């Protein structure tokens, strides 16, 4: 195990380099905090400025004309940022203008948010006619070019102060929040805790504020920061056009005066540039806050950025070393899985999802891989297919088809083997077909990636495949949303046999279907297997179904194989205590027995105990089980088990060690 040991040590190192936002509150998002800091700083400039600088200098005639800033030639120390063509001091103007620009934005966005929350929650919660009206109104209002209407309004209504401006801007600030709150309420309404609150008699307002609001908070905050910057942009736009309040200083007004006085042509950079810089800093601040909040609200984005970091870390690991003595497996094996280790490099440590899994699938047989949820059976399937998703990674082992190790293949070599030799019937047939392309194209895709055939032949082949799984020919032109769950799953089966692969991995192929359809799909799988003589790995947790379908069964517990046996002997004479437990828990109509349910996993997958993996749930646990890991050993004819109970020498093993 020297190799495995080293690899896992190296891999755990980068996991410690994780930043703030993993073990602390998600609000400690770097972008959000940076943005908030920038906005606060700008606000502070406007609020504290008047204490240090005489803002009366912001008015006409307060100083000499067109003086450059102090660091330029001709600049005056009493006007550090220079003066413009009316003799107004630039620093004083900026100090007065900044807070008023911010105020308009905050006010308009908060009013808009208030309206939006009221309308959105009514639409989402009350629904019906109200929802229809509010949704239609906000959908169409959101497409009206706001500034056009604002400009027209502003040309009639003399806006005297920033509050009037904010009120008018708020006219266009409500549709966004309304749409957001509505969709959030609709989603949250279906969550069980909200339903529970409803059943327990909480009032609509209570549910809204206690159950829903906290869950929408990041979304609302992102919408608010986005709204503030949109409102500042609208206000500044009006001011730049000279349609804002002209008596109150504002950043847009300074730009307007600069451009109408040809400051650009005259080279008076210090006139037009500083307000633009301040505005840009404000917008960058709000923008950072918004995307930070987006990451807080949408964990997938956060996860993606972090798995990229993880992948970089995992990418530095040495590549998996091929196992040389690979011929140890059986001669007639179609697929060999050899000492497979898959680890997930999560922020909280390295999760061992598959720990030295060994098995082979013989030609023409169905091997069942069973175990409770989370035991690693799907991880093994993904590892065989070479699609372990980051932060997961195969750290050791080999997956062989016809003496080619898939783990060591990549790029074009791997693509060639995929589907031609190794196909998949996926777990979630509901979502495994591309929703926007017809079945024809999805099946053609798989065939054309590996074979070069003409159109007519391709069409005939697809029709034959559909026929093979008992689907009518018209399915070829249908879209996934037009098919039922069972039909989709049969399309997936048809697709999997398109290239006559050596091995098909069927990942819980029937789990999402109702019982009758389950039978049809299982029957289809069996027929296909009989006709083509294909080998199959059938993953599932339904022992009853497995008993009817598979030839041999492999039982997995906490990332380890604990028993591999022909299905008859596994059911007649299960050796491992965990297999016994699984078989006992199959419900039976003939006798009512108490459900023998014990608690699920009892150890931490990041830190498996020494000794047997099942020790905490096992009735027969002995001293050696706590100290040494049992190997998978053949105890009966073709019946392998990893359990000390069947090792006659187990007592002497411990004693000899102590001696």
């Amino acid at each position, binding site marked *: 195990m020297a190799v495995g040991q080293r690899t896992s040590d190296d891999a755990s190192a980068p996991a410690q380099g994780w930043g703030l936002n993993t073990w602390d509150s998600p609000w400690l998002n770097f972008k959000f905090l940076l943005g908030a800091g920038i906005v606060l700083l700008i606000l502070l400039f406007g609020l504290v400025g008047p204490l240090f600088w005489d803002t009366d200098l912001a008015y006409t005639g307060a100083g000499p004309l067109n003086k450059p800033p102090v660091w330029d030639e001709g600049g005056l120390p009493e006007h550090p940022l220079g003066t413009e063509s009316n003799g107004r001091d630039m620093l004083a103007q900026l100090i007065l203008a900044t807070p008023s620009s911010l105020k308009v934005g905050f006010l308009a966005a908060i009013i808009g948010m208030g309206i939006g929350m009221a309308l959105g929650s009514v639409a989402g919660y009350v629904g019906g006619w109200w929802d229809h009206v509010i949704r239609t109104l906000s959908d169409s209002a959101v*497409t*009206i070019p706001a500034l056009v209407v604002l400009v027209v309004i502003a040309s009639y209504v003399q806006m005297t102060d920033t509050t009037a401006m904010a009120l008018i801007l708020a006219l266009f600030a409500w549709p966004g929040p309304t749409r957001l709150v509505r969709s959030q309420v609709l989603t949250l309404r279906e969550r069980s805790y909200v339903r529970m609150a409803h059943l327990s008699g909480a009032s609509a307002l209570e549910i809204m504020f206690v159950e829903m609001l906290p869950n929408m908070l990041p979304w609302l905050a992102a919408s608010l920061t986005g709204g503030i910057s949109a409102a500042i942009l609208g206000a500044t736009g009006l001011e730049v*056009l000279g349609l804002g309040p002209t008596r109150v200083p504002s950043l847009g007004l300074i730009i307007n005066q600069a451009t109408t006085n040809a400051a650009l042509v005259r080279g008076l950079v210090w006139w037009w540039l500083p307000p633009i810089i301040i505005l840009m800093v404000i917008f960058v601040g709000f923008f950072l806050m918004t995307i930070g909040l987006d990451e807080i609200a949408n964990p997938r984005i956060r996860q993606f950025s972090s798995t990229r970091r993880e992948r970089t870390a995992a990418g530095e690991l040495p590549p998996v070393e091929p196992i040389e003595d690979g011929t140890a497996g059986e001669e007639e094996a179609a697929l060999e899985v050899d000492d497979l280790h898959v680890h997930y490099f999560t922020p909280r440590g390295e999760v061992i999802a598959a720990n030295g899994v060994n098995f082979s699938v013989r030609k023409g047989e169905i091997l069942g891989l069973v175990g409770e949820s989370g035991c690693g059976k799907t991880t093994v399937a993904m590892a065989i297919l070479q699609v372990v998703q980051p932060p997961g990674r195969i750290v050791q082992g080999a997956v062989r088809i016809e003496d080619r190790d898939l783990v060591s293949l990549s790029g074009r070599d791997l693509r060639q083997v995929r*589907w031609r030799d190794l*196909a*998949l019937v996926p777990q979630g047939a509901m979502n495994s077909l591309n929703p926007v392309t017809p079945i024809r194209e999805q099946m053609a895709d798989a065939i054309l990636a590996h074979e070069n055939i003409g159109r007519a032949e391709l069409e005939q082949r697809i029709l034959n495949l559909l026929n093979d799984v008992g689907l009518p020919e018209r399915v070829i032109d249908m879209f996934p949303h037009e098919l039922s769950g069972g039909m989709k799953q049969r399309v997936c089966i048809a697709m999997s046999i398109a290239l006559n692969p050596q091995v098909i991995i069927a990942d819980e192929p029937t789990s999402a279907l109702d019982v009758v359809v389950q039978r049809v799909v299982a029957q289809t799988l069996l027929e296909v297997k009989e006709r083509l003589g294909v080998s199959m790995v059938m993953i599932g947790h339904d022992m009853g179904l497995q008993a009817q379908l598979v030839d041999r069964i492999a039982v997995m517990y906490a990332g380890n194989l604990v028993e591999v046996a022909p299905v008859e002997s596994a059911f007649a004479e299960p050796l491992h205590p965990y297999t016994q437990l699984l078989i006992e828990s199959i419900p039976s109509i003939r006798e009512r027995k108490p459900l023998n349910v014990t608690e699920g996993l009892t150890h931490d997958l990041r830190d498996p105990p020494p000794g047997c993996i099942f020790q905490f749930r096992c009735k027969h646990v002995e001293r050696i089980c706590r100290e040494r890991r049992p190997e998978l050993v053949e105890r009966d004819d073709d019946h392998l088990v990893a359990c000390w109970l069947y090792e006659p020498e187990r007592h002497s093993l411990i004693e000899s060690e102590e001696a």
Partner: protein
Amino acid sequence: MRGLTKEYVLQRFLMYLLTIWLGSTLIFVIPRLAPGDPVSEMVGRLSLDSGYIENADKLIASWKARFGLDAPIHVQYFRYWGNVFRLNFGYSLSHFPTEAWSMVSRALPWSLGLLTVATVLSFSIGVTVGSLMGWRRTPRWLQMILPSSLAFTAIPYFMFGIMLIYLVAFELDWLPATGAYSRRVDPGWNLPFIKNMLSHAILPVVSIVLTSMGGWALGMRGLMISVNNEDYFLLAQVKGLSPARIFFRYGVRNAILPALTALALGLGGLISGSILVEFIFAYPGTGYSLYQAIISQDYTVTQAIANLIILVTATSVFLLDLLYPFIDPRITYKRTMR
């Protein structure tokens, strides 16, 4: 079942009418809700400018009669709608014998050209960048470079435009700063004119594209990340398809659907922003004309342009809506099911 259904088209068309009605009504109602009325306001401003106007009261009364502002508000409203429908807004006040509509229609091609080019460029570049950013298989060097294209995302178009004018037009003198073409070329389908016209369009287009593509990119990145986790995306990998095919047919093809919705919803904002860009670059499109109409207090032209912009925006959204069922087969299906 697929493509357009009568019901879907009808529903979208009603939305189209509603949007136009809402926008035009806002333009009609808000000025009348405000204290005072547009005419008194205008005359008041005139007298502020010139000091004093003789017979201001008579002037106000006659202008009110001229615009029908003395009629009851509902009569005004119906007349207003009659005008909007016939695209008849009367004569321009500042260029009297010219009709408001003819002034507007002269400006429209410039804006349409500028905005179409800018929107298509910014959307397609943004979507490409975002898709690559959200794809697990994007080469690492590309992943490092791509975020730099977001640098100008937070900056409003027109501010970026001012800086571009200053740097590229005045300091470096590479491109013309303002206008749609120089006086020295003859407008028409000749090469010098087209070259001249294009050189004038570069800076406005660049300032819109560079500042708006980041928004599309960020949105697309999030959508692409979601698609990355879909079962069909995984199955496409297992099928042994080439990365390019997975990326386009399974990734982008699905992720772009909400982005197109966002485009339809964002058109209004884009057009709003372009008004300021036209103002900054003195580009003779509708936005610039709107500004000029407002500073010359040309009441009729202002109305005409505002309504036209609302109409054009709503039409583009409507066309995008009609396109959508062809890209997403599920849209009309759901509706016919219920």
